[in-house]
């Protein structure tokens, strides 16, 4: 498993190939979303919706061994692509790694510039929800021990 830092560096280097072309960037993000593993329809419930996102985002997490595995979907293609980046970084990491992770790839790929303030808030909401899951699983593991 690559470290969170390594994955972020990979993403930054992939996006740098797009050379700042906004249209290509948007298409690329949507392509990433199309490749995301399907989320079971049954999981797209009201309670799995991440609050604070402008478009609908569903996020679930489960513990496999000591790793957190995330699944997500969105009703908009671009958001789904952006969410897929977060899943690529966080899914399969341990709760401790997730909780201590410093996420800086968004600035480096110039994401705020084209996703706008409203979506940035949604992005923050996603991060918060991911960390909340990690914290819950960390507690679960510690109590279990």
């Amino acid at each position, binding site marked *: 498993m690559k470290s969170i830092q390594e994955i972020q560096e990979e993403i930054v280097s992939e996006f740098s190939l797009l050379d700042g*072309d*906004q*249209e290509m*960037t*948007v*298409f690329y993000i*949507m392509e990433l979303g199309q490749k995301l593993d399907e989320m079971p329809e049954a999981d797209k419930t009201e309670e799995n919706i991440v609050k604070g996102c*402008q*478009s609908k985002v569903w996020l679930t997490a489960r513990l496999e061994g000591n790793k957190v595995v995330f699944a997500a979907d969105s*009703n*908009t*293609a*671009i*958001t789904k692509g952006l969410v897929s980046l977060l899943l690529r970084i966080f899914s399969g990491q341990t709760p401790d790694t997730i909780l201590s992770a410093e996420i800086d790839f968004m600035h480096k790929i110039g994401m705020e510039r*084209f*996703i706008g303030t409203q979506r940035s808030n949604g992005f923050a909401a996603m991060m918060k929800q991911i960390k909340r899951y990690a914290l819950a699983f960390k507690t679960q593991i510690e109590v279990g021990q």
Partner: protein
Amino acid sequence: MNVSETIALDINKIRDLFPILHQQVNGKPLVYFDNAATSQKPKRVIQKLVEYYEGYNANIHRGIHTLAEKATKAYEGSRELTREFLGAASSEEIVFTRGVTESINLVASSYGRKFLNKGDEVIISGLEHHSNIVPWQIVCEEKGAKLIIIPVTDSGEIDLTKYKSLLSDKTRIVATNHASNSLGTINPVEDIIKLAHQRGAVVMIDGAQAAAHLPINVVELDADFYCISSHKMYGPTGVGVLYGKRKLLEVMPPYMGGGEMIKDVTFEKTTYNDLPYKFEAGTPNIADVIAFGDAIEFINELGKVNIARHENDLLAYAHKRLQEIEGVQLIGTAKNKVSVVSFIIEGVHPFDIGQMLDARGIAVRTGHHCTQPLMDRFGIEGTVRASFAVYNTKAEIDSLAEGLRRIVNFLSK
């Protein structure tokens, strides 16, 4: 001052008057199709703001010094231009507000609170912007009155037959827009007003989407209240107008208390100022009101007839080009429309379309356009809306069509 009624406008010359249009967005020439949200401002409007602040910024009315006199004259000059623009009988019937939203709230709060009683009915249409829904909900709830909605047809028009059957002796107020911000539908306000008057109800027309596109004459329409917003008609933000018939404004209590709106104040009793100042508490938005006058002159000089002809051309062309694209479905197909095109593309979320168009420098609006009940009526979450102004061109519509085609092609891969 109106120019000849039938000149063809030189759109390139008009574009030169708008500094903001000459820029690249995301590496592409800006195509601004979000005019129903707010239109861009010609240089003379922007310059007027600078001239005011550099030359004669002063608080208006009551000031005896030269700058105050100059500012007052310019401010009241805008009121006179507005009166003429709306065809009102007297400038005392022209109240400056912050926008249509405030104008509607003023009527709902002041007229509504005073004249609505338990069991009375207020009628609005299913085409309304939230700002012509919520103020009425608030006052109806407070007074125990009932809010009734005129249904909308599949083409996005007010159902006039249903409207007739909803009117009754209990109807006190009817409030509808002149043109729909979401769909562009032009409503038959003359009929709406006439029918309401037969039942003794007063009518408030939200003219936010009509002011820059359609001829308006409040006296001929016999509208009791008519509201417009400066920023949707090439003027600055933060200025709106409430036209009200004098006999109605006179019997309405003030909306806000403070300076400007009083004649005499003692701790025992305050007497209110004359119209329209009774409704203009506090220092008004002097600079923007003055520059709003220039926006009106800009429209007058082009001639609304000429503007409408150009915009109707754009509308017809946009309908044609969009319908050539697979999966595009127009929402709102009324016979009479202002230059607003609302559409959805099967299987593509409006946000994604908006985002992808933005990457090509094209500004459209996506979502429910502050008309959630109307979106519910069509069973959709929202639309993509392209809305045109006098400075838009067919070449820009070609760019929109090309952008949409690329999106559809990408997603159907």
